[in-house]
């Protein structure tokens, strides 16, 4: 009964979306304020209908209603409650429902909060959001309905893939989807602007907060997914250049370019055509990512062809929206006036540089991800494009960005001189050089280039602080004045500093985890030891434990430092009875920003267990960096200038009243 209610709500959402797609758009064409305003209520109502639908599916999971095919395939009555709930989006149908729910959430948020938007623009944006929602609702109802009933009710479910039975599933997909789908709004804004043909700095001001929100969530979501993979897969890797990862990384790169170019457009009315194009491409890449992940095209072009309904449906959506928006762009681009002139050496110039390298690096990721598919489709030959390719292409493209990153914020708009900017960074450059020498001295015959990379990270980190110091006026003014000035700086300046600092920190983390880490592995009997990074790990026996829906063999590993036992680590091999698969549970101990990571492999007939240990130097920086980036984005969002629906300052109001 509840499931039918959910199904009904889903169809109701479709009807409401249909209204949202047509009525406000028609109103905007005819200049009818009432029709335009109807977009607000229909999009909020559509969101509520989807909330009911999603809640109904969640309820079916909670009570383990195995009469639903979707619940039967992905749940089990013994599963802990948390994983019953998260299991809702741990599968194709449920995750698509979450996708659309978030899509309508953004429409509803725009409808409710963006009260300062011109009514025509708002009506058009909501209508375009409606078109996207419509397409995906049809996709769900026709090819991926989570409310489908089974003719006979099975007694027990088939259980969720054990790898997904983790707190990570509760956090990672929702964050990622908010990021992914959030860029739909920038897309709708771009399409709406092209339809009406009016694009100016104000447009960028309306769009930038939404792009920032999406970017913040996408950043956090990717970082979270990376950490999840790190501890769950049991071998300490944290980025694999896997197509599924690339699917979220592509919109991130393009979105990063977008929030930078939108800045130029907002402040200087320049780069308009380019910014519109980026807004279209970012969401197009989100759609492409959805296609890559959801169509099954990944494993092989052939497996895609064997069950093509879903894939072809999404491919159709992809073609309509990407092709349609780009065609519109091609028609309208010439009509757009390019405003705001600037010299190559200027803040704008630096941001163009950033955009060039970000877009090319994004294209490289797209190329590497899709090339094998295309080649197989064209002449049937199979090749692999793996991490070595991305390291060789993507890696070098990042170096210029990192080198230029500290310069950008120090440059003035329109026209700037390189020499004074560089002079202001003398100290930062000196400090980076010092760190390189220090690293070289401490590692002796260690990796020279890793030391250079450390210098690069320090350059970025200190460079981002340099702008703050500069603007405080320190050391020319006394500390109190400097602090007062720092407090008075716009939040967005602080946001930039935090985000750029995070990038530098991440570079340090990558260098540490790659070049200064250690790994050891042995086949251990009880009493055997491993020496790693000053620790002595001893196999101290094993035990079998019973979990709610699994059994696990836990290895006790005693960790000693300087002869004193510090703690016991408990890596395990887990076997999920319902699903019939095994997982590796690593055991991790954090020391400041470094980690001791221990996992177990197979046990042979003589009772020897493969015990593996890693010392991951500064590895936490890899994720702390992105967290700082996301935090910087949040700070920027609280900037008065960008606040969604921010009321005009009292000064401006007074000025208006006087006028």
């Amino acid at each position, binding site marked *: 009964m509840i499931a039918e209610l959910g199904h009904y709500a889903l169809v109701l959402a479709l009807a409401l979306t249909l209204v949202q797609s047509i009525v406000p758009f028609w109103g905007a064409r005819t200049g009818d304020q009432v029709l335009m305003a109807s977009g607000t209520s229909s999009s909020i109502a559509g969101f509520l209908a989807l909330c009911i639908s999603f809640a109904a599916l969640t309820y079916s999971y909670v009570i383990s209603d195995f009469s639903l095919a979707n619940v039967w395939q992905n749940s089990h009555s013994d599963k802990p409650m948390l994983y019953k709930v998260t299991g809702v989006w741990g599968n194709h149908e449920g995750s698509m429902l979450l996708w659309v729910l978030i899509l309508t959430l953004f429409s509803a948020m725009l409808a409710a909060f963006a009260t300062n938007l011109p009514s025509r623009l708002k009506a058009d944006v909501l209508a375009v959001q409606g078109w996207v929602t419509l397409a995906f609702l049809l996709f769900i109802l026709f090819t991926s309905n989570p409310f489908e009933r089974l003719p006979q009710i099975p007694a027990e479910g088939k259980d969720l893939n054990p790898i997904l039975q983790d707190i990570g599933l509760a956090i990672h997909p929702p964050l990622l989807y908010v990021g992914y789908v959030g860029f739909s709004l920038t897309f709708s804004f771009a399409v709406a602007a092209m339809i009406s043909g009016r694009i100016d700095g104000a447009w960028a001001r309306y769009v930038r907060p939404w792009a920032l929100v999406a970017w913040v969530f996408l950043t956090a979501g990717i970082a979270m997914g990376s950490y999840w993979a790190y501890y769950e897969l049991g071998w300490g890797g944290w980025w694999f250049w896997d197509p599924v990862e690339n699917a979220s990384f592509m919109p991130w790169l393009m979105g990063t370019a977008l929030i930078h170019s939108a800045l130029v457009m907002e402040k200087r009315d320049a780069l308009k055509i380019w910014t519109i194009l980026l807004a279209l491409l970012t969401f197009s890449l989100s759609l492409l990512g959805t296609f890559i992940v959801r169509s099954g095209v990944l494993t092989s072009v052939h497996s895609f062809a064997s069950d093509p309904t879903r894939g072809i449906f999404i491919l159709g959506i992809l073609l309509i929206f990407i092709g349609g928006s780009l065609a519109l762009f091609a028609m309208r681009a010439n009509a757009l006036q390019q405003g705001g002139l600037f010299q190559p050496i200027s803040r704008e110039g630096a941001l163009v540089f950033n955009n*060039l390298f970000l877009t090319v690096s994004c294209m490289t990721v797209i190329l*590497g991800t899709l090339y094998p598919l295309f080649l197989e489709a064209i002449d049937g030959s199979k090749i692999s494009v*793996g*991490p070595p390719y*991305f390291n060789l292409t993507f890696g*070098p493209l990042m170096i210029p960005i990192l080198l230029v990153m500290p310069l950008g914020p120090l440059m003035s708009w329109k026209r700037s001189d390189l020499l004074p900017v560089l002079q202001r960074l003398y100290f930062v450059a000196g400090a980076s050089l010092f760190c390189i020498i220090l690293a070289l001295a401490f590692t002796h015959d260690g990796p020279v280039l890793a030391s250079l990379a450390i210098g690069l990270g320090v350059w970025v980190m200190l460079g981002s602080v340099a702008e703050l110091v500069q603007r405080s006026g320190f050391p020319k003014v006394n500390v109190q004045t400097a602090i007062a000035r720092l407090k008075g700086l716009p939040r967005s300046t602080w946001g930039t500093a935090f985000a750029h600092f995070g990038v530098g920190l991440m570079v340090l983390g*990558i*260098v540490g985890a790659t070049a200064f880490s250690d790994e050891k592995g042995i086949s251990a009997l009880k009493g055997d030891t491993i020496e790693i990074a000053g620790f002595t790990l001893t196999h101290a026996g094993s035990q079998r434990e019973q979990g709610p829906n699994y059994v696990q063999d836990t290895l006790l590993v005693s960790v000693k430092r300087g002869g004193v036992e510090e703690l016991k680590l408990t890596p395990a091999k887990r076997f999920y009875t319902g699903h019939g698969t095994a997982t590796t549970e690593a055991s991790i101990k954090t020391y400041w920003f470094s980690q001791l990571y221990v996992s177990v*492999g197979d046990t042979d007939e003589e009772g020897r267990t493969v015990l593996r240990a890693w010392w991951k130097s500064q590895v936490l920086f890899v994720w702390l960096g992105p967290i700082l980036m996301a935090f910087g984005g949040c700070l920027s969002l609280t900037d008065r200038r960008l606040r969604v629906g921010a009321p005009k300052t009292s000064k401006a109001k007074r000025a208006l009243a006087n006028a």
Partner: protein
Amino acid sequence: MRKILFPFLLILSFTVQAFAVNPDEVLDDPVLEQRARELSIGIRCLVCQNQSIDDSDAQLARDLRILVREKLVEGLSDRQILNFLVERYGEFVLLKPRFTTQTILLWLLPILVLLIGAVLAVKTFNQSQHKSSRRASHLSEDEKKKLSKILEE
């Protein structure tokens, strides 16, 4: 040059240092073992989703790891070993595709697009500068006289 550059790129980009190598597979000669590890990172575990044989716990990955080490002990060069694997399993086994007519776009397109993008950016700068100077001179057509008048006064 490539030898020097490669670790640097490896460090700067997202690389995974993981290993699934079982202790009994490890070669006694540390130089050969190191070469085996480096080779393994570039060889795909054919039955896995997207893992190198260095990362994978699968039986096939283990067999390939042992095979690579056997060939190294026999004294084959890295290139010979990769050729041997490609002959046996096809290009699919290489995680870093070789530069052939099939992969020419894969390897060259990033550089090409970067160059084209740079040229376009520079061109846009020049155009806008040209426009601004033309606008300045165009405006001064009328105003030159006024200006000179003002200056004369």
